[in-house]
């Protein structure tokens, strides 16, 4: 079933590889995705675009907070387009309200987390692609770790990648889930590789419900030893994957929590039947994931 071993890796792929080899095979080797668009992905992408436009307007074009936010709203509505969210709370009006709420909680002109300037531009929504000390099993070219920062900010004298998460609820344990999140340690590794030693990671969460919004911000110190440990483990994981690929090893399923995480693995149905091809042909399509473009590329 395997076709191509990935050249460009990102945190989504690493999380998938660690969670379940079968999930990784379906998602990042065969590039299978369920047909249709997830409301969470669509609304999240529109919200991210609005944050980007708002910040660039304020930090890059020196517009007022109110005008910058209005430009963000324009971008959000345009990006959301004619998408139908069904009964989801992430409807267009709620997303516009969420954006206004976000910047009422973190006002552009008084948020202690200030977007820094890199190479003469505000450090907002920029991609990185850093070669790894591992080579592709077929081509021999270096593998690359890629990602995209929502923003890089200065906070309390330290530099932090900042990531926004939209969610349906923010419980008391919301902030604790990020402590060991490889995605964020990887962002800190990337920033360090770019010559900007980070103090840690900031995760800003906003919950969007039909009747209210909430926010939380988590500051996660990320010392060098943690970054080093993440990098060693990550290289080991990929190296093992290369070994399995070269050996033509069987692709094993998780048979445990990964099957149900985040409201169930999108490939659970395929693992639940003897002949998954019929389901693949009917309910899935090939949509390659491009870590450098954030959104899934269409063939």
């Amino acid at each position, binding site marked *: 079933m395997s076709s191509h071993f990935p050249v460009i890796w990102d945190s989504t792929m690493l999380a998938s590889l660690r969670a379940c080899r079968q999930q990784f095979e379906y998602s990042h080797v065969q590039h299978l995705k369920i047909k249709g668009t997830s409301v969470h992905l669509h609304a999240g992408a529109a919200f991210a675009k609005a944050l980007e436009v708002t910040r660039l307007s304020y930090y890059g074009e020196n517009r007022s907070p109110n*005008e910058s936010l209005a430009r963000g709203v*324009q971008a959000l509505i345009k990006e959301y387009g004619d998408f139908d969210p069904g009964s989801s709370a992430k409807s267009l009006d709620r997303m516009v309200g969420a954006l206004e709420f976000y910047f009422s909680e973190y006002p552009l002109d008084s948020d202690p987390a200030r977007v820094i300037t890199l190479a003469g531009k505000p450090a907002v929504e920029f991609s990185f692609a850093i070669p790894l000390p591992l080579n592709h099993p077929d081509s021999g070219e270096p593998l690359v770790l890629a990602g995209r920062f929502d923003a890089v900010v200065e906070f309390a004298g330290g530099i932090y990648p900042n990531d926004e998460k939209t969610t349906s609820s923010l419980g008391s344990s919301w902030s604790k889930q990020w402590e060991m999140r490889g995605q964020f340690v990887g962002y800190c590794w990337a920033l360090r590789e770019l010559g900007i030693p980070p103090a840690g990671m900031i995760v800003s969460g906003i919950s969007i419900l039909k009747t209210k919004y909430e926010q939380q911000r988590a*500051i996660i110190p990320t010392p060098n030893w943690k970054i080093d440990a993440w990098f060693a483990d990550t290289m080991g994981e990929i190296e093992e994957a290369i070994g399995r690929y070269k050996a033509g090893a069987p692709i094993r399923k998780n048979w445990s929590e990964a099957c149900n995480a985040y409201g169930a693995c999108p490939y659970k149905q395929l693992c639940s039947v003897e002949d998954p091809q019929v389901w693949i042909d009917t309910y899935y399509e090939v949509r390659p994931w491009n870590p450098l473009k954030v959104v899934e590329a269409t063939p």
Partner: protein
Amino acid sequence: MNQEELRNWIEQMRQKALRGEMTLDDAKAAVAYCREHRGKSAVRTPSASKPAAPKILNVSSKDLLKGL
């Protein structure tokens, strides 16, 4: 403007945007309506009136000093 009115108004903005007719003034009005609605909303979260302090995870005083 209640939630239903706000939803309808934003829907009109969506239609204008789809036709390429939405202006910056429309967007400013959307911000103002959302702000007004949030201010009047009966359901308020504690964080809506006062930003919650950020949560600092797994940090020793030594690490904190390094971060600062």
